[in-house]
């Protein structure tokens, strides 16, 4: 058996010795793009996109707990992001003196972003022990309280951002900012800002401190700085794939959202929406039949299923429910559409709120206007044909001026629009601020006893494998249902 070691050597697949960990970071970054739980839950809770249909599409449309879907963020993030970031951190920290400090800090930031979204969606989650399957052989990680997670994330992001250094070896092979340390720092601080704002209600002191630290350290300064996944034909946008395949005819823009945009003559409606006027079936929803004019758009009201929606459509004079407005899945929600995770626009709007609260210096109105403008400018990135002209933006801002008296609501409403197709952040901000001021979903058969869904439920796989740790989380946080509030949303 002298040759047994040789026989048992894999000469085909690369090992951690031969794979540059930056390849894993690239994988992690691409996979921070949102899963489709955002279409079935997050964007439905905030009344931007819903499906009237049941089955696997059951979710925020009925306020029901569909565990085939609630686990989607969890599965995609832990299995595709945390798995890789945990592996990189294990490799880099195993070395006594990491010779790639920038790679280490970048990885920490991407991981922190992911954990923030996860804890915002579920509450208590595996955090300090997560992603350590390879490095520490932890197979059943304990859940940490959201409070502890937030405290640690704030430190983590501060440290990692501070640790980024233009003088250390560069990491040009990463796909987010091509190794641009300045941009990474701006992302890190913008993430810190977001973390701070999320705890504005539960711990205003820490929130204010964090927000002001982030502001001082330097935030995103233009759409160039956005954290965006530039999907292409090989690495497609999840929402784009779903909305152009099996569920092409099943998701519609909600009347709440359409009506709000249309009531303010928001040019973004025309960019985002598409209605197949007169369509009586899925196959009739062809590119040729699509109409983009804002005045033609009709949003689907909340609270109906495929048994009752037909009547609503005919009452509204529509041919069928296929005649309601969809997100333009040929341009805005196409498979190659970019997915925005943190934008300059959102950052500016958060600053507007922080300024209004008096947490930072600067002019709330300026931040507000810049936030709205930046989002409108972003339309061009979906397609030239849906770009919004500067004069249209000016007109909109003139017609809908910043109102200091109603600043928080106005900022919240704009943040809501700015987070279109960014379900997790829209959902988080709605829970935190209560804006926009939505009516609860009137669907008759609901699983919730609260007005709105407050969190997503844990995966069945966790109930099956990690029930003891899950039980500890539940006893701390509250029942594993859609009602329970997360820590920062008490």
């Amino acid at each position, binding site marked *: 058996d002298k040759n047994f070691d040789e026989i048992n050597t894999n000469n085909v697949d690369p*090992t951690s010795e031969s794979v540059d960990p930056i*390849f894993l970071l690239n994988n992690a970054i691409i996979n921070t793009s949102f899963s489709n739980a955002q279409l079935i839950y997050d964007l439905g809770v905030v009344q931007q996109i819903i499906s009237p249909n049941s089955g696997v599409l059951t979710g925020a449309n009925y306020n029901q707990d569909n565990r085939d879907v609630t686990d989607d963020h969890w599965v995609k993030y832990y299995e595709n992001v945390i798995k890789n970031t945990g592996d990189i951190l294990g490799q880099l920290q195993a070395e006594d003196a990491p010779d790639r400090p920038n790679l280490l800090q970048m990885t920490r930031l991407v991981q922190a972003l992911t954990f923030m979204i996860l804890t915002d969606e579920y509450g208590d989650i595996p955090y300090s022990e997560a992603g*350590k399957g390879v490095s520490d052989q932890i*197979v059943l990680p304990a859940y940490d309280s959201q409070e502890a997670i937030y405290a640690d994330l704030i430190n983590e992001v501060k440290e990692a951002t501070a640790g980024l250094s233009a003088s250390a070896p560069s990491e040009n092979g990463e796909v987010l900012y091509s190794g641009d340390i300045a941009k990474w720092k701006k992302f890190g601080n913008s993430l810190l800002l977001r973390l701070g704002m999320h705890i504005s209600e539960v711990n205003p002191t820490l929130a204010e401190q964090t927000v002001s630290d982030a502001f001082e350290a330097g935030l995103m300064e233009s759409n160039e700085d956005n954290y965006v996944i530039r999907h292409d034909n090989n690495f497609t946008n999840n929402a784009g794939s779903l909305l152009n395949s099996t569920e092409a005819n099943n998701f519609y823009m909600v009347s709440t959202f359409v009506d709000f945009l249309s009531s303010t003559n928001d040019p973004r409606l025309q960019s985002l929406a598409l209605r197949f006027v007169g369509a009586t079936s899925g196959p009739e929803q062809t590119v040729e039949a699509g109409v983009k004019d804002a005045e033609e758009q009709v949003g689907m009201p909340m609270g109906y299923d495929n*048994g009752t929606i037909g009547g609503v459509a005919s009452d509204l004079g529509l041919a069928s429910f296929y005649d309601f407005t969809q997100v333009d899945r040929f341009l805005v929600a196409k498979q190659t559409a970019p997915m925005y995770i943190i934008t300059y626009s959102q950052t500016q709007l958060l600053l507007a709120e922080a300024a209004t609260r008096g947490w930072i210096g600067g002019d709330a109105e300026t931040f507000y206007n810049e936030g709205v403008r930046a989002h409108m400018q972003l339309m061009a990135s979906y397609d030239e044909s849906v770009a919004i002209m500067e004069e249209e933006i000016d007109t909109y801002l003139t017609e809908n001026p910043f109102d200091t008296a109603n600043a928080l609501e106005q900022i919240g409403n704009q943040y809501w629009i700015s987070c279109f197709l960014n379900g997790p952040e829209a959902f988080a901000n709605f829970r935190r601020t209560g804006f926009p001021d939505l009516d609860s979903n009137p669907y008759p058969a609901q699983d919730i006893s609260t007005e709105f869904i407050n969190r997503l439920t844990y995966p069945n796989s966790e109930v099956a494998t990690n029930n003891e740790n899950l039980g500890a989380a539940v006893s701390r946080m509250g029942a594993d249902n859609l009602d329970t509030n997360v820590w920062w949303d008490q």
Partner: protein
Amino acid sequence: NTSSADTEITLQLKNVSLEKVFQEIESLTSFKVLYNDNQVNYNRKVSVSYVKAPLKGVLTDLFQDTSITFEILDTQIILTRSLPSSIIKDTEAKVQQDISGVVTDTNGMPLPGVSVVEKGTSNGTATDFDGNYSLATQNANAVLVFSSIGFATKEVSVNQSATINVQLVEDSEALDEVVVTALGIKQETRKLGYSVAKVDAEEVNVNRSSNFMNTLQGKVAGVNVSALGTGPGGSSKVRIRGQSSISGTNNPLIVVNGVPIDNTSFGTNIGSSGGSGEPGTSSGGVYSDGGDGFSSINPDDIESMTILKGATGAALYGSRAKDGVIMITTKTRGTGQGIGVNYTLSIANQTPLDFTDYQYEYGQGENGVRPTSANPTSGQWSFGERFQPGMTQILFDGVEVPYEPVYDRIKEFYRNGLDITNSIGLSGNSEKGGFNLSLSNLESKGITPNNEFKRINVGLGASYLLSKNLSFTTNINYSNEENTNPPNVGQQDNTIPVALFNMANSMPLDLLDQKKFDENGNEFVYSRFRNRTNPYFTLSEQFNNIERDRIFGNASLKYNFLPWLFGQVRVGQDYWSRDQEYNGYPTGQASRPPAPEGFVNGTYTQEVRRFRETNVDFLLSADKDFGDDFSLGVNFGGNKMRRQADVYQTNVTDFIIRDLYTVQNGRIKNPNYSFADRSTNSLYGALNLSFKDTYFLSATARNDWFSTLSSENRGILYPSVSASYVFSNALDNMEWLTFGKLRAAYAEVGSDTDVLPYSDALFYNINANLFANSNGQFQPVGAPNTNTLPNPNLRPMRVSETEFGLDLRMFNSRVNLDLSVYRKSTFDQIIPAQISNASGFLSTLINSGENRNQGVEALLTLVPIQNEDIRYDITLNASYNKTKVVSLLTDTPGESIVVGTHAFNGFLYQVVGEEIGQLAGFGYKFDEQGRQIFADDGRPLRSDDIVFFGSALPKWVGGITNSFRYKNFNASFLIDFKLGGKMISGTNFNATRHGLHKMTLEGREGGVIGDGVNQAGQPNTVATPAQTYWEVVRSQQLIEPIVYDSGYWKFRQLNLGYDLTDLVQDSTFFQGLTVSLFANNLFIIKKWVPNIDPDSFGYSSDNVSGLESTGVPTTRSIGLNLNCKF
């Protein structure tokens, strides 16, 4: 020390047959009694009572006053009838002739000690240790009779030849049945201390199936065979004495002519927690069963099969034999002199069986509304309106058709299958050797209208005596298998069975066929459930072609050093290459996103797999008698196994030119190559002792070294010991007892079969496509290539098994019972345990866990009627096996791991303290008083925690065969059963949520009011629409309503045969002609699950046992076999 006529014996027998006396003499001495049945009335009853009397005197007494004379020649007692003197005078004139030759077994091995007697005379001799004999005949036209224990007696006419070489065939009917045991050593079953089952070739080549193992369902005690419902080229799942290892692979080892061959299953195993090492076909939209190692074997080549059930029998085969061994011996030589030709034709018609018992009161639609405008989307829902005469529905682009039930979807969609096998065998036999050449062609038309399986087999077996002591044997088998469009099964999407079984009950199938394409040639969207691809679109557009060439065989040289010592060297190889191409998602399938502009969508995969296993072994074997009572056998050998497999695969997505499915034409190309290499070295030895032919003891030891494990954990030594006692030898006064034996055995086996090569480290995969960074420069993307955490410290898993057995043959073998009890512990198991995915991985390989299989298996054979013309046999086999999980990581009761997840909803768990294979999922919610709780809107609520529904594995498996023979006519039928298991039925899951299941009829008008309380504890009074009520099986994963008992009783086989040899014997052309009619799977006597045949679908992996998902309907086959010998 030689026996002589002066040998003294002690005999006390009362009123027994002469034959019994002979048997006693043979067992007490080393004499053999030889006689011609026609001359000696061996049934004559006699009583004898001798104490230390000379043998010669005993014989004289026995034949006093008869015409029988005896002669003692060496160790033979030859009985002849004294002929009247006139005849003697006649024959005296005849010429004497010197005859010589060699006697061999079917493998060409010389047989020593064979008695050769000139028929009708006392003239005889015996072969020497090289099988040679010479004899001077006394009469012209003499006939020589060759006989030896364990072999069928053979008569050969002398004619003119001076040399007569004879091959003796093992006699399967003999009391002292001889079986091939480990290492190819032949043993009389009377000596064995463990349980073996011998399967006659007819068991697999009369009631035929394209995978011959499927015909053994219900026939062998302790062997659970399941056909998987995946089309004619599909796998057969065989479990011997239950599932030993907690993880997925518990396949027995297949050994052909002494050398192991590969049994990789390409079955579907969706939801298995991995680690089973079964490649399956589960990418690019294809989830079909691509067959296993059995499917390339031609049943006509099989001469005999032995199943070694326990670890003891298998211990010498080592690690891979932990789940038993199926030993197949193929033909190597003709049986007669010269050239013989054997032709077999088998034809079977397969009729699809429909077990659906759906509701046909309410038709297509949702929420109580039927489709009334163009492009309806309900296609897969039957929650519409109540059928009323004269109603219509509007389907597709506006076609108006009657709104009425469409029955018999299964019969209408599927076709009748047809299997045709043509086999021709050519065999020869001569002085120095012989050969058997066989050619066989199977064409099997599956019931799925585009599914076909074709197989060509060529088998060549030959043996040759190179010199006096050196012989050579070889077997080479070639097969070519073409499996066209094995159907997709085992998942929700992209399968014909799921789409068809859930089609709305008023959907006219002819219209569905007619409207499968839209105006662009894409699939016409007929349902909002786009994943349920129109089955006619799938038939027309999807393809999956598999072709496998396989060649396996071995060559061995055997040298007899001494009469009692031989050495053997053998080289065997199993090589196959397998090409597969498939378009899992054809262009235009409605479930797929469109391709970028300028391309069309779809996927295509092309792959080539190669596999090679070589085994080189040597064996030194000695067998010697010491004195009258004592014999000793010693075997020592070693084996070197090397197994290498690789895969080249290219997946492409989207195409430039429509309908050109090639990798070059793909837009995104994703090539992959992988390679696996493993080796095991072994040394082993065995010791066999026998005393007075009554007490037998045997012991083995084997040491394996595995390349897959680290150097510290690589080697493992394991022993076995077995003993048997033929107590009937001591109970001579119990006349009814023909034969009785007690046996006991203990064995250990170590194994690395659940460890894949390179499991010790984490490897990575670099994505075939680069991703552009913010500057537009393309960068590599990578990730670990597995979801299973590696474990560098794995040790071999261990099996230990204890078994006791009783073998009784009574009333002249008219009542026979073979009983075994066993306890088998499997520990240090290598299990892919599902872990929290928050770790980043889905499973980890643990080296822990024990489970215990305990069971009883019994084979009862009754011969109620037996005379010259009529024979009636009843064979009853039954086995009870219960496997309990003793420990996982710890032995804390209730500790559990998930090993598999249902393609629909539900899990398969292993739980400490429970039976193996626990089905689990969410159930109904009950309050403390046991009342069911409903939500405020009336929907049933699901339990807070996962509920266990019981083990998926059957506890009772068996069958009853009744067979009759009247002269040349024979008939038999088999009833089989599997009882005591549970299943989560995916078919019923879908039938429930789609409104086809009869239980969804309640509350169609006015809603369902569940019997129970609301969350406040008040009686539930809220009505919920039926569709909403039953949707919970999907949206809440509340699967309790679709958990069933998976047991059944089936009328499995019937066959009628007639031996026409007598009718054709006059012609010189035919030497034999038999015809038989057979039928398989005639009807189900009893089952507990509605809408499906309980064995209609199974996964080949044990990790997903009992998680039923709609498979290809089972079939009833009716066929004809014709066998001619020339």
